[in-house]
């Protein structure tokens, strides 16, 4: 039986907002290799969020307002690159997506395997 090795269960918590430590989580990164976060509350454009992924600290300034349950980019995602959450590819960027930008159906298309 072929055994496969999976990445460990990595999950990060966004703990800082506008430089102030917040007691409530504002967003979640479901797996370590994801390049996006999902909002756990309605977030305003301009808000600065600190993200800790695998002990790396990243700071993201929201370009767009992100409603609860919606996603925003943590990285510079180039056009045609993979958009990942749950550690898996859910689509590809149809345009360059900057950190803090809303990620949704208008800038993501189906990922077609080569």
């Amino acid at each position, binding site marked *: 039986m072929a055994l496969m090795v999976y990445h460990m269960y990595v999950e990060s918590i966004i703990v800082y907002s506008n430089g102030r430590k917040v007691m409530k989580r504002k967003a979640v990164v479901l797996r370590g290799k994801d390049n996006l976060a999902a909002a756990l*509350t309605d977030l305003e454009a301009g808000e600065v969020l600190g993200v800790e992924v695998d002990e790396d600290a990243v700071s993201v300034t929201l370009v767009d307002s992100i409603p609860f349950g919606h996603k925003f980019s943590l990285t510079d995602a180039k056009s045609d690159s993979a958009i990942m959450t*749950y550690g898996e590819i859910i689509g590809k960027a149809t345009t360059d997506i900057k950190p803090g930008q809303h990620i949704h159906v208008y800038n993501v298309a189906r990922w077609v395997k080569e």
Partner: protein
Amino acid sequence: MSFWGYPRPDGAAGTRNYVGAISTVACANDVARWIAERVPGCALFAHQQGCGQAKPDMELVHRTLASLGCNPNLAGVLLVSLGCEGPVDDIMAAIAASGKSVAKVVIQELGGASAAVAEGSRLARQMVTDASLIRREEVDDSKLMIGVKCGASDPTSGLASNPSIGAACDILIEGGGRCIFGETPEMMGAEHILARRAGSPEIGRKIIEIVNRMEKRSMAMGVDMRGANPSRGNIAAGLTSIEEKSLGAIVKGGTTPIEGVCEYGERPEGSGLFIVDGPGQEPKAVTALAAAGAQVILFSTGIGAPHGFPFVPVIKVTANPKTYQRLSEHMDFYVDIAGKASHKEVGHDIFMETLAVASGKRTKAETLGYVNFTDIWTAGTTF
């Protein structure tokens, strides 16, 4: 870790100790219900199937009834039959092979419903007495099978409750136990990801096969399930693609390899994580988990699905604070979506709650008696 379970002759452990009053055909439902109502300690399983169906569906129904009877939560089984519906003796033999006591009443042979209720009640009372002598023992949690299901989902399901339940599944499987989830339509879009997680290429092919079969059934009715997802409502809620939607559902099974795929009504062999083919519709989906042998079910809900199952405790988990407040009489476990605890930490708490329920703690659905909403799925139509 361990829980307190009822020992069974085949080495399994029950989390409950009922005598099952199982109707073998829809036409016998009332008699089965009357017996279950007359004899405290009985759990009723009624359904709308067992007659006027094509051979593969009849086999599916009989397989499911036999597997339900084998569930470790039943100390004994009384089959309630009309008489003309099919091989009740084969179902009896399959259940008896597990070593537990099993009996039948046949309405047409006994001369009607009244006589069947009288004879069935007599048999059931004796089995309840026998069952009452069985004591809970401390058993290793490797004897536990958790069934996993989500229903009436919302964005909190995929982002918080399902990943937390998945973490609980990982803990049980690491300890040698078993978890199983179904809902084949929910896998659509993520079947290639599940197949990649299969323990063998054959299991991977089977995952693709059950999804393709389910898709063909909807296509035959002129409905393109794949094309219709994510729905307009899903998109408004933030879901971008069918892959993302399905990932949010399958994350409830955790991160371990898929060790097998069961047909509806089959019981898996071995340990680890399993899939059972079947629908998402709740009374039929939960039946598949109980038939597979799950002694406890973790059920995540966003909007609030309230019901349980007659002889398997169903733990309702929600991460929607409004649902937890409004439907507190139905919700067992609250996941604080904005809390500081990681999904892994919450998953540990869910696992401990699962062991408590497995050891006898009553769920909300059990204390309400909101448990008699059951059916068996069939692949084809009724003739």
